[in-house]
């Protein structure tokens, strides 16, 4: 199964900014052990743009996370046999990137 591991940061209590070396090392391990599908960190929420083109014309607005305390700071996509394996990875990931992780399966 594939799982989306969302990195959740908190504007009131942000995770530390010096985690990149640890994250890179963790990614190397994910690749070596066959779990890695994709990973990426995101720019700040004020760089986001939302387009709603369900009506007559496209409406642009700022991102949905701009005002919220918690926001999506980055993602991993993992290939794992079951949730227990994904949660074990998430436990490490949370330590490594010093942020909360939401684990959600792809359909």
């Amino acid at each position, binding site marked *: *199964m594939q799982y989306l591991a969302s990195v959740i940061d908190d504007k009131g209590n942000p995770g530390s900014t010096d985690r990149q070396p640890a994250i890179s090392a963790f990614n190397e391990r994910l690749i070596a052990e066959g779990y890695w599908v994709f990973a990426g960190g995101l720019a700040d929420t004020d760089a986001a743009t939302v387009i709603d083109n369900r009506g007559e014309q496209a409406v642009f607005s700022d991102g949905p996370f701009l005002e919220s305390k918690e926001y999506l700071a980055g993602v991993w996509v993992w290939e794992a*046999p079951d949730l*227990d394996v994904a*949660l074990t990875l998430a436990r490490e990931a949370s330590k490594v990137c010093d942020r909360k992780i939401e*684990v959600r*399966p792809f359909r």
Partner: protein
Amino acid sequence: MTDVEEAITRAHRDEWARVVAAVTSRFGDLDVAEEAVAEAFTTAVERWRADGVPPNPGAWLTTTAHRKAIDRIRRENKRDDKHKEAQMLREGAPPEPLAAIDDDRLRLIFTCCHPALAMQTRVALTLRMVGGLTVPAIARAFLVQETAMERRITRAKAKIKAAGIPYRMPSAEDLPARVSGVLAVLFLVFNEGYLVSGPDPDPVRHDLTAEAIRLTRLIRVLLPQDGEVAGLLALMLLIEARRTSRVSANGELIALDEQDRGAWDPALIAEGHRLVRERLAAAAAGVAPGRYQILAAINAVHTSARDMRDTDWSQVLALYDQLVRLDPSPIVALNRAIAVAELDGPEAALADIDRLEDRLAGYHAYQATRADLLRRLGRRHESRSAYDRAIELAGNIAETAYLTRRRDQLG
């Protein structure tokens, strides 16, 4: 009860979890298993009446539930695709003999108590899938609407499937934490039965305490080496032994010091004491006891005293000191203070619990303990307001009745 009804009841009690576990193991789907097993029991009622009770009811139920599951998958796959049907039917090949699948029940329990599920959901799912309780019965036990409970269980099964919660034993590394998660679920079920938290007309729910004990016994059979499993079972047995003397004829809770000790169940006490001795021997051999074992030992001290005055309070206090090191929660400290009151007097105990006020002021047992200590110190006015507060906070009707009488006796 007719022979057939009796056989069905016995099969339900002894075989439900085993059959659900076997079918889940075969088809990898809790929802399919639950429905198939429920249908197999319904069929058993008709068929056993007509043809007599089969020689091996468990095997009969397993085979029938397998057939029901295959029927359902076939029906669903008619709408789906043919390829999937062939695959499922291959997986749904002949059931294994019963003895070989014993630990399927353990897998079932670990799945139902998975940490990715909310605590209330784990409780409901365990009672349904492992305990075989009906959804209306579970809803009643937790004062929830039937439809809400149905939704909770359905959502849980959907999450297990969609999120890939595995149907297998946890890894060796995860096992201790996962076992303690299972025990927490069973203890919660037991406690809800022991002192119903809401204003239920039944202050004590024997069906829940009995179910919790039955499931803990099952875990004990499956994990005989686990000290905390033995500890929790002993703890439940020693509390359950006092059940009939805990509520008076007029529906009032009876505190430990006023209970008729002659009415305690000697068989349950003997079994509980045997388990505690087994764990004491292990502790003497260097295995550090966990919290359930220590709590069981405390209850063994209480159930060893023929009279409240014979209680070995210094032993109780020593055990609480051990427990505090393991679990520094304010509730443990509160219970420890009750032993302090017996040894060093109410004044010392009151000083201890005053330190807990900011964390426990909204907890009924804190206010009730405080009221009792103030009463013993002759501080009637303060005692009365603590009783008032405790009565306000207590949900259980027998406890409210008890606290009200104690308050009114202050004069």
